């Protein structure tokens, strides 16, 4: 026992120190935990701190469970489902392109169908932790595209749950189509059961674990989560889904905020053990044999995400800078890819998947912060046709406002001083507004005619500004928000 404590303590400490050194230069932490496991594990020459990776198995499993539990607890259900259809279309495109490309690559490698499905997931789902930290560090929280990026990665998390449900029967070794269908049916049935618990049983769960003492709440929480995860694995649904779903249940109880706070440090420690544990199983020598597939996978990921960024950019009317930021912020791969690889290795699939995913995650860990930080160079080379060809874009300006329609401002000054429709009708008006797309002048909503709003209903031109003296505001009908002045110096609109 004594020796085990020394090895475990040392490897966790080294992982923490290495990750801290990485953070200094802006690199994400998850790959460093994994790297520690690789370097100090039994499969790699050099010092070995943990001789038997299986000693860590229980702790690593708890790390995986808490990671997904936390994801479920923090899942912003209301924000995501309240954010409209366009976000789901954008996320759908992003996921479809990413997973589709991953699947194509997986089949091209020819390691087998289950392997291809795992690779599709590992390539397809970006790391929420890495993208979120990048946005904070690159000071982009005020950018127009940031809420969209965050929405997309949150929907990707949700997709992960369904993907796991789809994948677990295949990993469980079902072979005939009937067997697979049965397993998938069971998985989704179990998901539905947990959704029902979330809807009607949240109170009971809250009562079960909800002590007013933090100590007892933390203990009850860990016990419940690990138990549900274990039971899920027992009925053939993966423990990861069970943990995620019970997280969604707990999120509906009164103790949600306290659980969120209590689980964080636990998750951080045990998840680090999980990542280290994954690293322990990786043999550095195997990197050579997967180098070419990894290089292809990285290139595919970059190309696919830039395309997805362009789709999102044109959906939301971003300029080049916004579209480039969307594509290049979500390049990082981390926790989810490693979870899928772990499940694959646990199911006895082709063992090249381990080093493949490990190297892929490591390469993108270094590349993704660099690409995200330098997105303006990409913005310079995206032609207008790739976004919306009818619009005039200010390519490299950050769109730092909540409104996403500033690209449609074509004209900002007019010498019109009357609402023509009111004049024709012989009516009066209170205030005047001007359409920033075509320059039409109409009366405000306090006037009987409401011609400015009528103009928007007719043409879809989203932005107006006030023509009243001493008023300096603009309003976006689509976003329902006041917006600030147009970004940066604009080219004069002549032609």
């Amino acid at each position, binding site marked *: 026992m004594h020796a085990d404590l020394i090895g475990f303590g040392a490897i966790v400490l080294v992982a923490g120190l290495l990750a801290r050194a990485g953070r200094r230069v802006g690199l994400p932490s998850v790959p460093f935990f994994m790297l520690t496991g690789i370097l100090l594990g039994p499969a790699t020459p050099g010092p070995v701190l943990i001789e038997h990776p299986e000693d860590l198995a229980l702790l690593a499993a708890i790390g995986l469970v808490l990671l997904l539990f936390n994801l479920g607890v923090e899942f912003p259900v209301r924000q995501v489902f309240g954010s409209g259809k366009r976000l789901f279309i954008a996320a759908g495109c992003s996921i479809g392109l990413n997973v589709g490309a991953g699947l194509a690559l997986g089949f091209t490698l020819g390691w087998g169908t289950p392997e291809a499905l795992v690779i599709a997931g590992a390539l397809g789902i970006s790391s929420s932790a890495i993208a979120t930290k990048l946005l904070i560090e690159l000071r982009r*929280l005020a950018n127009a595209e940031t*809420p969209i990026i*965050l929405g997309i990665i949150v929907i990707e998390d949700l997709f992960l749950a369904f993907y796991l449900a789809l994948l677990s029967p295949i990993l469980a070794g079902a072979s005939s189509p009937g067997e697979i269908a049965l397993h998938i049916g069971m998985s989704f049935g179990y998901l539905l059961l947990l959704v029902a618990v979330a809807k009607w049983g949240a109170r009971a769960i809250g009562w079960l674990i909800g002590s007013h003492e933090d100590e007892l709440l933390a203990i009850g929480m860990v016990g419940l989560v690990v138990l549900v995860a274990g039971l899920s694995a027992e009925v053939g649904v993966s423990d990861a889904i069970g943990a995620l779903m019970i997280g969604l249940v707990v999120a509906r109880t009164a103790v949600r905020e306290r659980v969120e706070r209590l689980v964080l440090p636990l998750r951080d420690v045990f998840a680090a053990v999980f990542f280290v544990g994954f690293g322990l199983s990786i043999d550095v020598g195997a990197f050579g044999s997967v180098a070419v597939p990894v290089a292809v996978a990285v290139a595919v990921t970059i190309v696919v995400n830039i395309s997805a960024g362009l789709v999102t950019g044109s959906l939301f009317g971003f300029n080049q800078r916004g579209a480039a930021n969307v594509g290049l912020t979500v390049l990082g791969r981390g926790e989810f890819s490693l979870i899928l690889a772990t499940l694959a290795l646990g199911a006895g699939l082709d063992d090249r998947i381990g080093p493949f995913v490990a190297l892929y995650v490591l390469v993108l860990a270094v590349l993704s912060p660099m690409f995200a930080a330098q997105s303006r160079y990409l913005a310079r080379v995206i032609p207008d046709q790739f976004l919306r060809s009818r619009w005039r874009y200010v390519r490299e*300006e950050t769109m730092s406002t909540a409104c996403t329609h500033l690209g449609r401002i074509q004209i900002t000054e007019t010498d019109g001083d009357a609402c023509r429709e009111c004049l024709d009708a012989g009516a009066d008006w209170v205030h005047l507004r001007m359409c920033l797309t075509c320059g039409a002048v109409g009366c405000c909503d306090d006037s009987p005619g409401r011609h400015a709003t009528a103009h928007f209903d007719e043409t879809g031109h989203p932005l107006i500004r006030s023509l009243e003296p001493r008023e300096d505001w603009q309003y976006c009908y689509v976003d329902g928000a006041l917006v600030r002045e*147009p970004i940066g110096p604009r080219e004069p609109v002549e032609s």
Partner: protein
Amino acid sequence: MGQGVHVQELPGIGKRYDIDLGHGGTRVSVVVRRDGTRDLYVFTSRSDEPTAVVELSEEQSRKVGAVLGGTFFA
């Protein structure tokens, strides 16, 4: 109150409040993260990049907020 303040949800991070200060694109954005940290973005021109970004802990933002709110300290 309320006019010129825009609230934006940032899924997974928290909420952003954009406060328009009127002249020449001057505005302040405050991001309240779920862990209590606040990011204060200050824009002093119409240009793209924030003039300053300050990360405040909960304790620090209480201090700044109290002074902004008109609390007097001896």
